[in-house]
């Protein structure tokens, strides 16, 4: 009887302790993708050592402003499909929205 009692006691304490320890050790994924433990999270950071600069004269990143701009006369073949030469180049919106949307990115009817 003493053995049964002891076994029961040890089992109960063991299960309880293990469960409590598990509860304390859990790192929740939170339902969000950045800590899922699959070892890719670090890829959300860019590799260290990127050196900016080297944007010499004529290195442009912005779109044209306003209507009527045509694309450069291309020539050659590209992996992408070029927009028709007759197409006027789109730009950013000319009208504000007074807020409402989140985030950004470009956009804009000519």
């Amino acid at each position, binding site marked *: 009887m003493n053995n049964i009692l002891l076994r029961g006691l040890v089992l109960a304490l063991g299960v309880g302790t293990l469960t409590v320890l598990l509860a304390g050790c859990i790192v929740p994924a939170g*339902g969000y993708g950045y800590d899922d433990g699959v070892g890719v999270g670090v890829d959300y950071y860019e590799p260290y050592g990127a050196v900016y600069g080297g944007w010499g004269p004529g290195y442009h990143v912005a779109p044209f402003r306003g209507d009527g701009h045509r694309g450069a006369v291309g020539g050659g073949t590209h992996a992408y499909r070029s927009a028709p030469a007759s197409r006027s180049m789109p730009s950013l919106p000319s009208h504000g929205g007074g807020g409402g949307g989140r985030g950004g990115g470009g956009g804009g009817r000519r």
Partner: protein
Amino acid sequence: MNSQSRSNQSNSLAPHRITAQRMKPDRVGRFLRLGLFVAFLGIANATPSMAAPLQLPAIVEPASQEHHVGKIVFVELVTPDLAAAKKFYAGLFGWTFRDIQAGGTKYAEAFLDGRPVAGLIHKDVPAGEHRQPSWLSFFAVGDVDAVKKVALQNGAKVLFEPHNVPDRGQEAVFADPQGAVFVVLASSTGDPPDVLANPGEWIWSSLITSDPDADAAFYQKLFNYEVFELPANPGVQHLLLASDDYARASVNTLPVNRPKAHPHWLNYVRVEDAVKMSAKVVALGGRVLVEPRVDRHGGKVAVVADPLGAPFGLLEWPDTESKEVPSE
């Protein structure tokens, strides 16, 4: 008598024997029940932290019926020091923050004049790793799984499989064929409208890449962009990606004199004065990576980094036509 006596004796002894026999199993049972109770408490304690999802806000509130595939609809900073990042962006743009926390994940939603502008998420850099915090670009899509299929067929790598984020929608993280990281999001509340950003809001994005030609083709397959070629110096390309008759982003050649640089997406915040804002970046502990310079639209562009090293752009978009003439 004897029989009666034995019987009486038996009757008088029996309850003791029964009690003694029942007592030990009862104690065992009691301890087992105690153990189960402790286990229940442990599970009850653990379950909320395991199950509680990070409740991220929708990108559009109230929900809209607008969908703009290929538009960059959200940006999110991944940083190892959320407090420092919040202090910097609050000082620079006047953003305010609402903290969101679930389990071990810390997130801050950024606002400008009460309007949500970005998300900031804390993530430690593993010990021994040298990595740079960055702003992630979120592209609007209709079907994340369909985009994943096309992306994989065209040389992309999945960094995080499609998954649902409560209230926000379904998203997945990829590296494009040249290695630039981006996110696709099928927003459950629609996409933001196409309007001109206010100062302090995100206005533009550029992909700086080692192979603009191939990358433009890749993103065209994903988002059905129109691709325009803009005038550029010999040896470099400047492409414009458009959808819905709107300019969405540029694709530029990675400068060849920066061999350690890597393909990446760069997002720009609209500012009224790039020179003043660049000085403010430095005063707040950040760095200027590309000095303010006039771009083809007649406003200045600069690239800066926050104190943790995350790069982003500053872009003037004057209210009037062509403020200055860019150098060619």
